[in-house]
Structure formats: C-alpha cells, structure tokens
C-alpha cells in the first residue's frame, strides 16, 4: 500500500460519503455533506503537491542553492490553506441562508423535492 494509494482512497471515501449525504437532501445532511466534501477537495488539492513526509517546505535561512526535490510543493499548500478558511466562511454562509429560509417558510422542507 503506497502513500499515494492511501491518499487517493481517503479522498474517494470522503467524496463518496459527502455525495451520499448531499443526495439525501435533508438540510442538515447537506451541511454535513458540504463539510465532508470540502475535506475531500482540500485533500485532493493538497495531493497535487505530491506530499511526502519530512519534506516540509521550510527552507534554510541563509543556505545557497537548494534542491527542490527535498521539499514538497508549497504552492498547493498555500492554496489549500486559504481554501480551508474560505470553506469555513462558506459553511457559515450556507447555514445562515438555511436559517433565513427556514424563518421565511417555517420549516426546513427546503431541501425536499
């Protein structure tokens, strides 16, 4: 079992669970599904940086030439970092919308049909 397979299978499980929750259609399940989906997607993006242990992208302070092979790709990490925070904001937004809608029509049948 390689690291890549582990990551890929974890992504697959997270996305599958997320989709199942989303398709169930109840409002709460949608929130859960979106959260799971954001885990999966973040891991997916992160995986594009070809992660490996003990290669944190922190370079020596005054070193001269360095070999990129000694570090994982920092760019996907930077993107995922902001994506995590924005994902949180989006979760909040979605819940707020749901709350407003529930107040508007009295129940959360919203996700039904």
């Amino acid at each position, binding site marked *: 079992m390689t690291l890549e397979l582990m990551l890929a299978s974890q992504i697959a499980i997270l996305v599958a669970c997320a*989709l*199942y929750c989303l398709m169930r259609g109840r409002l709460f399940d949608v929130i859960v599904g979106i959260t799971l989906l954001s885990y999966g997607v973040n891991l997916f993006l992160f995986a594009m940086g070809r992660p490996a*242990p003990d290669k944190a992208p922190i370079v020596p302070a005054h070193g001269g030439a360095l070999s990129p092979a000694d570090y994982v790709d920092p760019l996907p990490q930077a993107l995922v*970092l902001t994506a995590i925070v924005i994902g949180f*904001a989006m979760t909040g937004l979605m819940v*707020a919308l749901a709350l407003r809608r529930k107040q508007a029509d009295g129940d959360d049948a919203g996700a*039904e049909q």
Partner: protein
Amino acid sequence: MTLLTICLLPWCAALLLARLRSATAAFALAGACALVVLGLLGQMAQAVWAGQTLQSSVAWLPALGVSATLRIDALAWLFATLVSGIGALVILYARYYMDGDERLPRFFALLCAFMGAMLGVVLAGDLVLLAMFWELTSLASFLLIAFNAPDRGAVRGARAALAVTGMGGLALMAAVVMLGRAAGSFDLATVLAAGDVVRADPRYPWILTCFLLAVFSKSAQFPFQFWLARAMAAPTPVSAYLHSATLVKAGIFLLLRFYPVLGGTDAWFFAVSTAGAITLLLGGVAAVFQHDLKGLLAYSTVSHLGLITLLIGFSTPTAIVAAVFHVINHATFKASLFMAAGIVDHECGTRDLRNVNGMWRYMPLTGSLAIVAAAAMAGVPLLNGFLSKEMFFGEALALEGHDPIALLAPLAALLAGAAGVAYSARFVHDVFFNGAPINLPRTPHEPPLWMAAPVAVLVLLCLLVGLIPTPIIGAPLAAAAHAALGGSLPSYSLALWHGFNGPLAMSALALVSGVGIYAVLMRKRALHQRPLPDPWGYRQFERLLLTLARSGVVLVRQLRGDRMRLQMAVLALAAVLAAGWPLLGGGFEAHLPELTAAIPQGGIIVWVVGAVFAIAATSARNQPVTVLLFLGAVGLAVALAFAGLSAPDLSLTQLFVEVATVLLLLLALQRLPVEAPPVRSLGKRLRYAAIAVAGGGGTGWLAWEAMLRKPPAISDYQLANAVSGAGGTNAVNVIIVDFRGFDTLGEITVLAAAALIVWAFLARERAGVLGRFQGSFMLPTAVKIVMPFAALVAVHLYLRGHNLPGGGFVAGLLLAIGLVLEALALGSWRSPHARPVRWLAAGLGLALLTGAASLALGYPFLTSAFGHPVLPVLGEIPLASAALFDLGVLAVVVGATVMLILAFAFGREEGKK
C-alpha cells in the same frame, strides 16, 4: 465621404424623427432624407456604371482585421438606389396611408432606421460590418411588423420574423467568420478576389451551409417562407417596402454578392436551385388560394423570390443577368401592387378577397394602375415582368448537364408561370370585377391623388422598362450584372421581340393556362368557399417554439434550486466522467516512474480514523450532535494527515478551523432543529450509494493518476527565491503573503464579504446578551485567565509565520476562537475585544495600504520589501512589508471568524420575537 453620408444620414434622420411630434415635419424630414440619399447615389451613377468601385474606410478593430469599410460598385449601387428610391415613394405613400395617425413620426423613424440598415448591408465593404447591418435589418423589420403591437397577429408575425431572420443572422455571423478565416481577410474586396481559395477550403461546405441558411431565412426561401406571410400584419407601406422590394431582397443581394466567391460549385447549384424551385412552386400555388389580398401578394412575393433564387442557382452568366433584372422588375411591380392593395384596404376597410369585389366602379384610376402592375407580374408582353420572365424561361430551357433538374426545370418554370398568371388574374378579377362588393364597412372611393402618385410612378417604370428596356435600364443592369459576376458579361439582349422561340411559346402557354386555371377554379370550384391552404411551416414553427419553451420549463424544473438530489447526482456523474473521459479515449498518457513516498508513522491509524468517522457521519440514525463530533474526528484526521505529510501550516489551520466549525455548527443547530430523516426505500438508497461510490471513486482515481506524475512546477522557483526574494523561510507563508499576495487579498475580501452577509442576514434578530450562561462565575474567570495566553500564542504564531509554520491565517483563527469564547463566557456579544466590523475594516485597510504603499513608491501593487535589522535586545528581527500585509490578513480572519460565529450565537430564540 459621400458613402459615409449615405450610410449615416438615415440613422441621423431616424434619431431626429423619434423626437418629433408633428406628422408634417416628420414627413418632410424622412422624405428629404430619402431624396438626399437618392441624389447622392445619382451623383455616383456615371462613375459606378463605368465599372468603378468607390470605397471609404475607417479603422474599427484593427487588431482583428476588421475595419468600417464602405464600398460601392454597380451591384451595390443598384440595390442602394432601389432602397432609397422605393423608400422615398413609400414615405410619400405612408404619409397618406397613415394620415391622422399620431404614431407617424415613430413610423418614419423606424422606416428611416431600416433604410439605414439596408443601405449598410448593401454598401458594407467588410464582412463583419455586413453581418452587423444584416442584424439591424432584422431588428428594424421586427419593430415595423410589430408596429400595431398589442394586436395578436402583429406580435406573432413579428416574433416569427425575428426568430427566423435572427437565426439567419447567427448563421451569417458564423459564415462570415469562417469565410474571413478561409479568405484570410474580412475585407470584401479581398474576399471577392479569393473565390478559388475559399472554394478549395475544407470549410467550404460549412461556410456554404451557414451562408445559405442566412440567405434563405431572409429571403423567405423554403422552408422559411412562412414568416413572410405572417409579416403581412405590418402596415401596408411596410409590406410594400420591406417585404416585397428591399428586406427580402437582402438575401438575394447576398447571393449575388458572394456568387463569385461561393458560387459555381455543384453544391451551390443543387442547394440554391432546389430551394428556389420548391419556393417558386409552393409560393405560386399558395398565392392562388389566399383570400387575403396581402396574403396573395405575400405568397406571390415568395414565389418570385424563389424564381430569382432559382436563376442564381442555375449559375450561368445569363441567368445572373436575368436574376438582377428580375430583382428590379419585381421590386417595381410588387411595390406598386402592395400600395394598390393598401389603397383598397384603406378605402374599403377590409382586404378580404371574398368581400372586396367590383372596385372598378369605385376607383378606376387605382384599378387601371393595379391592372397594369398585375399584368407585369403575370408576365404580359410590353411590360417589364415579361422580359425577365422570358429570360427565365430561356434559362430553364437552356439548362443542360444536370439531368433530372434539366428535365424538370422547364416544367417547373411553366407551372410557376401559369400559377403566376392565375394569381395575377385573381388579383385583377376578384378585386376590380367579379360582381359587387359584399358587406364593406365603408363606401370606397378614389384615394387622395398623392397616395396614388407613388403607384403611378412605379407603374410607369414598369411600362417604360417593358417598352424600351435598353435606354431605361440597360446601363445600370449591365454594370450591376458585371459586378455580380465578377468577370466578363455574357451577351444578352433586352429586346422585346426575339422572334418565335421556346420562351415565347412558354409565355403564351403560361398565360393561357393560367387564365384557364383561374377561370376553372373560380367558376367551377367555388374558390371563395375553399379553406385556406395549410400554411406549411408556420405550424411547425409554432410547434418548435412550444417545444423549446416546454423543454426550457422542464430544464428549469430539473435544475431549480430545490432539486438538490438531482444536482448532486449530476455533480457526482461529472466527476466520474472527468476521471473516465481520458480512460475512454485511450487512457492517460504513459506513467512516469512512480514517486512512491514512505508512509509516515501512524499513517494507517489516521487513515482508518478518517474513513470510519466519515462513513459513520453519513448514517442518518445518529443525533446531529454526534454527527458533528464525527465530523470533527474526520477533520482531526485530515489535520493529522497534513501534519504527517509535510504541511504543518495546513495542519494548524485545519485544526483551528475545525474548532471554529464545530462551534459554529453547534450554535447554529440550536436554532435549526433537525427533523427526522426522510424514509427512503432501500432501492433508492442503493442508487444514491452507487452514484456516491462512483463519484468518490472517480475523484479518487483522478487524484491517484495525478499523483503518479510530476509536471514541472512553478514552486521550484518559489522555493529557491523564498529567502532571497521575500526574506522568509516558510515557503507556504511567503507564497500567501508575497508571491501570491494579490490572490490572498482577493481571498480575504471574499472572507470578509461572506462574514458580512451572514452578519447582515442575522442582524435583524441579533440580541444583545446570551441569557443561558448568565450567573456563571467559573467560566468568565477561567476565560480571563486563559485569554491572555491565547492572545500571546496568537502573537507568537503570527510573528514566526514568515519563517516557521504559523502566519496570519493561523494566528487570526486562534485569536478569533479566543475572542468568541470570551464573548460567549461573558454572555454578551459586546465583549470588549470582539468588535468584528472594526477588525474587518482595519484588516482590509491595512492589507490594501500595504499594497498601495508599494504603488506609491513606484513599484507594482503589493511589491514587498524586507530587511533584517538587528535590534539590541531582541536580536535579529525579520522585518518584511509582507508582515504588515500578514497582519491585515490576521485582522480580517479574526473579524470574519468572530462575526460568523457570534452571528449565530446571539440570534434571538425561535418563537420569542
């Protein structure tokens, strides 16, 4: 310059007219405009007839090779003269036709706008310009047909016309773009000279298809003929102008214009002549059976347009001459016939052929003019229609080579000729003779003299051309045909008498049989009692519209917001397809050597935790709070995975976001009661599961395949330059605050926007205090003890962020969670430090200012500067302007997070409003 004036004058007039109130002033302005244009064209006549091409060009979109070129040669001149000449007559006619109608200025404005558009089509020297003006003619036609707007017929007719010609406009745009590519230029002159290249181009069939779609839709060729009959809902001057003489001739003009480029091939011959022949016969037969006077004329127009198209399809030089000639002739006699029909309609109050009879007694002048024009339409000798019809018969007889068509063409021509005579006969006999009028709303009499004058002018032209063709029309016809052919002119004769030959025999036969057919239909078959023939095409069109509208409704219903399961299924299937597509098409490209990394210690455990809790969270039987705890466990596993795979920054961020998310969702849950999960059948659940597994599997597969290859990454540069370029050793943080700082600025703006939206949503019901925790002593005390430490840790994380894991995002999240706890513990959202709006404003302002500062110093936005000053006590301090930016990020994250969570915490309770 003159060309530009010709092209723009009608538009200026239209703009002015739209502001006018007085009908007389409007008439004067519109008439003057048409006459000036006519005069300017007259000035050019000699030069153009001599074969010159005048051109004026203004750069328009030089980067695309598109310029506003205007160009006039004999063909364009001929059409422009038709447009402005008949335009002038129609304006005079409309002045009396619509006398007393206060909408007259608007009508003239639209008419002038149409004239401008049409002149633009004719004079355009650039393909893109041509297509643009072509669209404008469609729009002007739409507005004119819909002139009596609330009227159902007008609206439906206008809609049909716009749909059909608009579709044609799109097709023309496509054709023009391809043609420009194939010919290497959008310049008309260049394109006209590049015929061989275009015909050899592999795109030629596509160009031709799109081009013919445009042309056929505009010129009402089969199967688009129906819109023209519907367009008769327009006021009669419009019918006389647009739908007989000019607009519908735009398609013919285009056919003639591009004949040297696209014509001459077998595809052209078959497509154009087949459409022309079908239209010719269909229109001719349908015209005989119409009971509406204008309907009869409309279908006869369709038939004549088919005739011209058929001639162009024949693709012989003499046929092109005949086509150009018939364009002129048809415009004169059909416009005059429409005007005469309008007079009858105007005077009788109806134009139903079954009621309008015996008009000869009431309006002999109009009657005689109409009879002459109708005779020209039927092809009676001594009139212009006869000449061009003779040429048409001659061409049909002379056709050789293409077998079935060569045999059928003369027969079709004869049949169409007979039909033409029959409907002309009906027009004359049914309106002016055939007993007495039945149930007319008013007593008809002769129209005002000036209303009949335009008809008289046109009829006079019919006669003159018919009698002495060469002096009247010889020079412009020859020049125009020469321009249309793009080469040498064939020998032809415009003489009235060619001796006894085939065409003459056909003419005679057509005349006799046409009159006979009409007589039989009228006397023996009770033509008046016959139902209208099925307007083929319109019903299909309506059905198509209906189908489109219905499918739109269905589509909307399927995609609407509340069909979540379907949308999710689509999303999942899209992921499957995205992963599966390259596999179906022969697999991903060859695998690179696998870069298999070692599995870090405990990796398996993390994997199992993540997988088990993710699956557990999907079970609907759990309490919501339990599900949230499971989610938290999954998030923890993800954070551990980040930590183990060399992403300490991500790990920290994920950890704090996890805390914030659980807080937020718990607070939201107390206000969002979760109802029992809907009961679903096992089959349905299995289906969802199947889709979910497929979607997840596809995503995972995609990730797997992507991880097995290593493309060159820009981050090699970023790693190498993190220290030298940005003064930081933590490459992730350097990317966030420096290399991709602009990106981050956008992201924190989004964050702030989302938080503000939530704040605004829930603001209405935000309560000042949180009742439940009041009276507690321990929690506030504990918070007071812990809070300074939390703040200290946040500062620490922020300060080291540029070099070690940490940074503004992480520090901001930590601080925010601390502030939220403080606010919750104190039970008041007015906790001293949690002023989220201020945090947001300060953060965004700081980030922007940092960027603007570099702008002020003459560097691009967000350029960072850094130094490592050594301070006495603290030692070397890494100081980068990016740190200020990061501080802005921190403040925004604090503000947004506090705002998001507190918005849910301090909402008023349900039912206590």
